Structures are given as structure tokens and as C-alpha cells.
């Protein structure tokens, strides 16, 4: 091969690399290992983790331990879905493009909004992307009003990402576990670019969007809602309330926990915003012979064409994870999504009552909840968690670092995998732990 090139050695091919920057030594990494050794090493590392396989877990806060049906594993393992690149040559990418189209339809249905893209990275960065859309929509407006019940990671990601936009973030406080409508109304003026809400909110409460959205819209601000896509199976969709952009974390739809990623973010909007949406969008069309087909469309929004004026810098998104989401929604089906929602609604109510009956445990609020709720413990929450862990139960996410006003708060999540027996076990384990722990 070197002869064909006209070079004497591999070194010749690197002649353009100046002496001064040549490494001149091997990389200081271990030598390569055979497959079985790599497997053994990583298997041993994985064994150090306590996963939902090993304990009864009630931790949520954005990612949830649902049952992922086996058909998702088998379809995602197909080379034709796993290994191709972004569909730049549509003639040989009809599989991936049609999946995007079907997925966009499903997200549109869930959110009640007419347009959806083909995925973004995950929840919090989707919220930030929605903020960028608001910024492009009305560049002169500079205030972002953000509910304190928006996921803490979303609030922080928005703050980090927006630092160069000339916008300022103001937090709207809560009243009894939901966004304080009066405080929001007082804060609104014609300099507000967007209002950010979560539905259900981070503390599990179903926000009364009728009490919040109209005032925001009247001020001319965009309304952005981070939503739990599974809860949208039984909740009135954000589009119905006049929300402009609905985004969210898609992991709960057929994706693994994977210690936080990869998952996908969904992004849906009112028709008026379609040309400012980020990311890939698949559209239906026909070929030269009239065959139905799909292509990436409205590409002039994107970085590879619009460059510095693009609606976002995103290139690679989460196509495979969005496929998993679509498979999950097909598996649940029209009726199944509703049944799952109703099941979680009932079990969550049962769980909240069961924990509220424990001495030293009190619900943080009494708002309607769908699949997650918060309690305050009259005990050191970290000690309680350790005590529960010893009994093989992970009772929930400690709220204190993100919500210092709920120093010994615990966020408890349900999925269909947590049965009544599991909930009863949580209650008795928590009761014992609270009793034994140092008072708060």
C-alpha cells in the first residue's frame, strides 16, 4: 500500500506534523486487552453498582425504573438501526426517516402541539433550547421567569447556556408545592421573553396551567413547559392550555436508566414556531416515481446550512433512543398508556397515604400527583436513606441540596414495577428508619 502511495514508511505520511508537537513516545495507557479480559474487568466494575436490579427503588426526579419490554432490546440491536449515520442520503435511510416521522407524530399527540422535532439530547438541555427559541423569537425581551418547581438541573442548564444571550433569570416562588400564580402575575411585563413551568412539577404536583398560562400569554411571553411524557397519557396536554413549547425528558419511555444517559429529549411547539425549532425534522414527500417517502426537511434552520444563524448548534441527537421511545409507545398503545397512567395515579395516592401515616413523615404538599410526591421527614434524611439501603430499599431522592427549605425532604417516585407489596415494604422500612434515626 505504501508503494501505491509513493511513501517509504508510515512516518512519511505524518511528515506534516512538526517535530515540536510529535509525541515521540507511546501513549501512557495500558496495552490492549483481549475481549474476554475487557469483559471481565467491566463486569467486575458493574458489580460494584447497586442497580434497580438489586434493590426496590423509589428514586425518580426525572428518570424512572420502568419495565422495558424485550422487543425494544431486539429491535435496537438490529444493525440497520444501530449503525447507520444521520440520514443524509434519504434513498437508503427510509427506515430511520420513517421512524422519526412516526415518533414526531406520537410526541405531537402526547403534547397536543402540532409540530415536533426528531429528538434533542435530554430534558434540561431541551429546556435551554426552548429558551433559545424564545430569545430568537423576541430578541428585545430580556427576562426569563422560571418556576422554582422546574427541575433543578433544567434551571441550572438554562442559566449556564443563556449566559451570553443578554437575558436574566428570575425565579418565581412556590405556594403549597406549586408555582405561586400571584407572584407570577406580579412579575409579568412586556420585557418577559418566556415563562418556564414543569408539568407535573419537580415536587410531583400537577400545576394548574389554567391559572398560570393565560397571564403569561397576555404579556406576550412564550410559555415553555417541561413535561413528563408518561403523565401526559392521562393529563390534559400542554397544547390545550396554550403552551407554546413543550419539552421533556424521554427516558421514561422505553429507555434504560444507564446512570443518566443516553436517553432523549422531546421538543414540540405551536405551528408559528416551526421555523425556529432546533434539530432534525423528518417530513413526508414522494419520489420521482410517486412512491411515498420521507426526508429531512426544513434543513435551512440547521447548523450545516445556516451556520452562525442556525436555530441551534445541534448535529448528532438521540435517534436510537427516540426509536426506543416510539417502540415503547407502540407497545403501550392507545389504551395501555392510559391504563399505565391510571395505575400509577392510584398507587402513588396509596403510597403517599401510606407514608403520611408514618409518625415523623408528612407530605410536603397536598396537590394532585400522578407518579411522584414529596414528603418531609422528622429525621436526618441521609441517615434514613442508609438505613433503608441496608434493608434493600431506596426510598427516594433527598431534596435538601436542591431545596434547602426542605432540608429533610424526600422525593418518592412510582412506576408500574413498584407493586402494593413494594410500597408496603417501603412504608415499613421507612417507619423503622425514621424511628431509629437521629431527630432532624
Amino acid at each position, binding site marked *: 500500500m505504501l508503494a501505491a502511495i509513493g511513501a517509504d514508511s508510515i512516518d512519511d505520511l505524518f511528515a506534516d506534523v512538526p517535530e515540536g508537537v510529535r509525541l515521540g513516545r507511546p501513549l501512557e495507557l495500558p496495552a490492549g486487552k483481549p475481549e474476554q479480559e475487557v469483559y471481565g474487568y467491566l463486569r467486575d466494575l458493574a458489580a460494584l453498582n447497586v442497580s434497580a436490579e438489586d434493590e426496590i427503588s423509589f428514586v425518580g426526579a426525572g428518570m424512572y425504573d420502568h419495565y422495558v419490554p424485550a422487543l425494544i432490546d431486539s429491535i435496537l440491536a438490529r444493525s440497520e438501526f444501530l449503525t447507520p449515520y444521520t440520514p443524509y442520503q434519504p434513498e437508503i435511510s427510509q427506515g430511520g426517516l420513517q421512524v422519526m416521522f412516526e415518533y414526531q407524530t406520537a410526541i405531537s399527540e402526547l403534547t397536543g402541539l402540532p409540530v415536533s422535532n426528531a429528538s434533542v439530547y435530554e430534558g434540561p438541555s431541551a429546556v435551554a433550547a426552548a429558551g433559545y427559541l424564545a430569545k430568537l423569537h423576541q430578541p428585545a425581551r430580556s427576562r426569563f421567569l422560571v418556576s422554582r418547581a422546574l427541575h433543578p438541573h433544567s434551571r441550572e442548564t438554562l442559566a449556564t447556556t443563556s449566559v451570553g444571550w443578554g437575558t436574566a433569570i428570575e425565579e418565581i416562588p412556590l405556594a403549597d408545592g406549586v408555582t405561586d400564580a400571584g407572584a407570577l402575575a406580579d412579575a409579568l411585563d412586556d420585557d418577559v421573553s418566556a415563562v418556564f413551568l414543569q408539568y407535573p412539577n419537580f415536587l410531583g404536583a400537577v400545576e394548574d396551567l389554567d391559572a398560570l398560562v393565560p397571564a403569561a400569554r397576555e404579556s406576550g411571553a412564550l410559555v415553555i413547559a417541561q413535561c413528563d411524557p408518561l403523565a401526559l397519557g392521562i393529563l390534559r396536554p400542554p397544547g390545550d392550555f396554550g403552551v407554546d413549547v413543550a419539552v421533556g425528558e424521554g427516558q421514561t419511555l422505553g429507555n434504560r436508566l444507564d446512570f443518566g444517559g443516553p436517553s432523549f429529549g422531546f421538543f414540540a411547539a405551536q405551528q408559528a414556531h416551526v421555523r425556529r425549532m432546533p434539530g432534525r425534522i423528518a417530513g413526508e414527500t414522494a419520489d420521482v416515481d410517486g412512491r411515498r417517502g420521507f426526508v429531512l426537511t426544513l434543513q435551512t434552520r440547521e447548523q450545516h446550512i445556516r451556520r452562525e444563524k442556525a436555530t441551534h448548534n445541534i448535529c448528532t441527537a438521540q435517534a436510537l433512543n427516540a426509536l426506543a421511545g416510539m417502540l415503547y409507545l407502540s407497545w403501550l398503545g*392507545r389504551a395501555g398508556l392510559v391504563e399505565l397512567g391510571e395505575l400509577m395515579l392510584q398507587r402513588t*395516592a396509596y403510597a403517599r397515604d401510606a407514608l403520611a401515616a408514618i409518625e415523623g413523615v408528612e407530605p410536603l404538599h397536598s396537590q394532585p400527583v400522578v407518579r411522584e410526591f414529596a414528603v418531609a421527614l422528622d429525621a436526618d434524611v441521609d441517615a434514613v436513606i442508609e438505613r433503608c439501603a441496608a434493608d434493600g430499599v431506596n426510598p427516594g431522592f433527598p431534596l435538601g441540596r436542591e431545596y434547602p427549605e426542605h432540608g429533610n425532604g424526600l422525593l418518592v417516585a412510582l412506576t408500574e414495577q413498584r407493586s402494593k407489596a413494594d410500597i408496603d415494604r417501603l412504608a415499613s422500612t421507612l417507619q423503622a428508619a425514621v424511628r431509629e434515626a437521629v431527630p432532624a
Partner: protein
Amino acid sequence: MSAEPAAPAGTRLSETAQQRDRAVTIYERSHPGRRAFVAPELDVPRREGLLPERFRRSEPARLPEVAEPEIVRHYNRLSKRNFDLDTGFYPLGSCTMKHNPKLHERVAALPGNARLHPLQHPRRAQGALRLMWELQSALAEIAGLPHVSLQPSAGSHGELAGVLLTRAYHEDRGERRTKVLTPDTAHGTNPATVTMAGFEVVKVGTDDRGGVDLDDLAAKAGDDVACLMLTNPNTLGLFDPAIEEIERIVHDAGATLYYDGANLNAVMGRTRPGDMGFDIVHFNLHKTFTQPHGGGGPGAGPIAVSERIEPFIPRPQVVRRESDDGAGPTFALDHDRPKSIGRLRGFQGNYGVFVRSYAYILSLGSDGLQEASETAVLNANYLMARLRETVGEHLPPAYDRTCMHEFVLTGGPMKNALGIRTLDLAKRLLDHGFHPPTVYFPLLVDEALLIEPTETETRETLDAFAEIVGEILAEAAGDPAAARNAPYTTPVRRLDEAGAAKRPVIRQPL
């Protein structure tokens, strides 16, 4: 995808089996009442009125109604309408379509990884945190920069992190800089990132050797410039030998130097961006480190930074702590980073991607990674030489230089002499069972064809590709219509993209 015989000049093949299989969506396969999911029994007392009526959906979302066999069959059939890397050669320049080792799926699927909640107490996630820390260390060694954050979820996300870090660095020094320089050959994500980070894009020219125009750079590198974003080798596949001078100019102006790691596959073990003087580097784990592309993600875009940028890196950071009780080190998520730019996403990043990339690094090791880069460069130069033989007259390299892991040909002569464009060549390649190279990028080259074979292709495959490209051009000399009307044998033929843009239909009406 099996290759059908080439279309005879001027005529069209009758419909192929793939084409006869018309597109039907999952919604169109639905029938009321069909289902796959079986809900668990309600085992708690049913309560009414848990949700006020006005909070409830009045109609269920119109999701598909299909049973498992239909779902499996629908998506299986759909998958067969995709070409993929496991099936054939995929020389997509700038994308590094190298083989995705199958071990990686096995380790990613281990329950200790797949079913681990991101908010599990760190004490009970030591395997994951240690894996992340070890990956960080390996990436630091490969980049030649000491501090790594795994948080960004894709290359663009890493670029955004890098420019935000630059902003924080300058602000910390009390400086307000407003501009970021990018070469005119830059990938579109670079300028898009600059705008998102609140800076103004200033383009730097490329000289006729394919490197940064140093005079233009020196003229533009003023004290209002925050950063130069560069990749080396660049998007033309050329290593810029003036990198030391570039570094001097940029650092003398007080700006940071950012490395877009999309082309890292060319240089592992040979040179390191840290040693070239870069302050911030992003990696594309879905390029260099074999995370499968998934048809458009997931990926990951971790960053490596120099000492002076370290205080600003995203939070939380995976750290290693020596324990004082002799029990061995523990790994933790450090949130206590007062100068950090903050978070760019939820939780810790795309951990499933880290598992696969780390498995790759463990498998190849020091020697293997260097060999990967050397073979990538060898394969690219070899393919460029073979194509010079078969089609050099009409499809010559844009630059008469040794390339690195990829190279650009220009289809300008082909267009003038044979009447077919780069686009037509790409579409005709589909009929021969190859994924085409990248077309019309970089923008600097007329009728560009950017070819990156990667190190995991055999010589036979490269020879076959060079031959086929020769055949297509020879065919065009006699009958340009054959390529202009291609492809013939794919599930659909050329699609009306203008119609899709004018009248977008982006969801199924139900």
C-alpha cells in the same frame, strides 16, 4: 442491500422488490382494540377524584393499536430500508464510520450499568464513577490535557462547553471579548455554537496549501478575540504544519485555542492537541471511540482542558479521593466548584456511551489506538492514490498533498467534462451498495467529495470502491443520464425535497 445490475443506459429498471414494499406507518397498521402491553392488576384500593376533571385528558392520545407481532414485523421491515455500517462501506468524511465492536453492547447491557439510577448514592455507584474517572484519565492522556469533563452529550455540546469556558475564563480575568475566530472550512456547528454562546463569528481564510491563512489570522487576532476554534487535521483532511505559529499568534493575542476533535482519528499516539498548544479539546465518542451512530445519535462530546481552564469546567465533576482509612480510593461527584460554568444537562452525561468507549480504549490500549490512527491515515492515502489512478483526470484531489485520515476530491472537472455532478455520483454509488462519501462539504471546495475510509476497512474494499467510482465515471462519459437519474435499486428513488420544504408534512394526520 444487495446490488442489482446497473441500469442500462437511458432505460429504467422495473420496480425492485424493495420499491414494491410501499411505506406504511405504524398508525396505518393499527386496529381498534389491538394491544401488546398488559397492565398489572390494580392491587391498591381504587380511589375516585384523585385528579380534578379539568386536569384530565378528554381523549386518549392517538397512539398505535397493534400487538407485539405487528410491532416487531413493522420495525423489522422498516430496518431493511436502511443501509448501515455493519452491512457495507461507509466512507462518510468527517464522521469516522469505523466498526462498532459487538462486545460493547454486552457490557453496556449489564444490569449494573443499564439499570443504575443516576441519583443512586455515590457509595452504591462506585463501579460507574470509577469507570467514568478511568475514562477521563485515558482521554486526558490521549488529548495531552489534564482535566476532562464527560458531561457534554455530543460534539456540538462539547463545542458549546468550550466556548462557554472561554467566556468564563476571560471574565474571570476581567476581560470582555466579543469575537471568536473560525476557519472558513469549519464544520457548521462551530459558527452556530459561537452565536449560541453570545459571541460574533469572524471567519479566517484558508491559503492555497489548505492551511490557515496566517496573515489573515494575524490581522484578525486582536484583543477583542476570545478564541480560535480549529481542528487539525482540518476538514480538508490536511494537517496544518503551521500549527505552532498559529498557537503563538492566538496566545499572544490572549485568546484561547479550541480543538474540534472530530478528526482525532488521524493523530492518536502521534501528536496530541494539548502538545499542539490547544487549551480546550472536545472528543466525539461516536466517531473516534466507536459509539454506534444510531441513525443520528446517541453520542457524547466530552472535553479536556488545560490547567488554566480547569476551574470553570462543568459541575458536577467525577473525582477520585484517597481514603484515610486505608480502604482504597473512592470516587465521587464533586459539586463544590465555585467558578464552574454550571451544568449543560441533567445528571452526569451519556454513561452508556462512556461504557462502550471505555471498552474500546481497554481493548485497543496504547499500541492499538496508535495503530488505529496510523492505519486510518494509511488507508486514506492509499484510497486517494487508487482514485487518482482510476478517476484522477475528472475527480482530482483538491489539494496535491499527503492527506491524513480523510481527503477531498473536487468534482468540478467531472461536471464540465462528463456532465454529472458530485450529487449524481453519490446517487449512482447507492446502486452499487456503497454509502457515498460526504458531499458538498467543506464549502471551500467546488463539488466537494469528502472521503474517510477509516482503519477498519480492508485493502480489498478500498480497491473495490476505487474501481466502482471509475466505472461510474466511465458510464457517465457514454451516458450521463444514468447517474443523473440514479438511484434505481434503492427502496425509493430521488425524493422531492423542495416539495417537502414548501409544504412540510411532519406528522401523520389522524
